[in-house]
């Protein structure tokens, strides 16, 4: 429905970035390499504020880039950035794209993950009208990813054996997929 609010959830809001202030939060998060890895800097390492600022500038959508959307995740009535929702690699000719949610700390992920993901799915399927979405996870976070994404209806589609190396060992790369039709069915059932 066009009256459905896209950016206001029950406990969370999606917002633009406040680059100056949010850079400090992102820099703090990045001491956790599992978070730093999600920003695509290779090899992953903690980021100072200047690097974090650059990351947030890159995450601010340029109108000519139609394949990338990112939002700041905040808890209602609180200003601090707790996470980032991204829709990336959108192939408009195929109606396919990728979603991910990054949280600065595990408590926020636990507390806000499913609501933020649900908001991202509404945006992807009702605003971007995608046919399907995928999301990626690293083997070291397999249980966490399964509980977040399978609960939201995703199916594990691909296991890339030994695709990633960190923390002293190789891990599988996992890719989960969800169709708009599967998402709609669940919306109706709830």
């Amino acid at each position, binding site marked *: 429905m066009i009256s459905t609010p896209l950016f206001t959830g029950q406990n969370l809001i999606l917002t633009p970035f406040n680059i100056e202030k949010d850079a400090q939060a992102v820099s703090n998060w990045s001491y956790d390499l599992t978070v730093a890895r999600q920003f695509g800097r*290779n*090899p992953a390492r903690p980021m100072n504020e200047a690097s974090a600022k650059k990351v947030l500038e890159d995450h601010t959508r340029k109108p000519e880039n139609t394949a990338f959307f990112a939002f700041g995740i905040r808890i209602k009535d609180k200003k601090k950035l707790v996470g980032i929702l991204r829709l990336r690699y959108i*192939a408009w*000719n*195929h*109606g*396919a794209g990728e979603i991910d949610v990054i949280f600065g700390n595990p408590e926020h992920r636990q507390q806000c993950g499913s609501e933020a993901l649900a908001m991202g799915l509404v945006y992807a399927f009702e605003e971007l009208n995608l*046919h*399907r979405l*995928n999301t990626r996870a690293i083997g070291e976070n397999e249980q966490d990813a399964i509980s977040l994404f399978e609960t939201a209806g995703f*199916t*594990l*589609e*691909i*296991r*890339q*054996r*030994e*695709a*990633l*190396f*960190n923390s002293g060992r*190789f891990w599988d790369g996992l*890719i989960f*997929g969800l*169709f708009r039709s599967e998402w709609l069915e669940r919306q109706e059932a709830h």
Partner: protein
Amino acid sequence: MEDKIYKGKLVRLAIQQKDNVKAYERWNLDSEYARLADSDPSYLWSRQQMAEWIDKEEDCQVSFNIRTLADDKLIGGVGLWISDWASRNAWVGIGIGEREYWGKGYGTEAMRLIVRFGFRELNLNRISLDVFGYNERAVRSYEKVGFKVEGRMREWINRAGVRSDLIYMGLLRREWEAVEENLE
């Protein structure tokens, strides 16, 4: 030693040359080829754009032309993109633009050569690729080289209104070593 890396029985891996753009231009006009080679919308790139790409060499990318040994004819291209050196994982892509060389083992041999290059020269642990569900000939070719299907992104591709899966395949160093020993 160099010969072993670059040369097989049918083809060799060759340096990209600027005058290849004439062949690339012809291949771009073959819409079936373009739709087998890339998921992006087919497009007619200018000679100048293509020449710029040939000139541009990047540390994370190793690209070769594929030329026949019999008459040194340019028939296609193959390349490795190293996504992450610490993970020793690279993506491989291949295309045979000249149709009369389809289904005769030229592409399979070129793939064997680039895979050997990746494991021996780049010290990779794994090589990854994706292939469109409607390209069964390519899947069979990659399986001959040793790649295994690791899953499918269901209905990822939409071509002329028909949806197909995007098939992911992977080849691990230890699996390649077992196959390579049998070849030598």
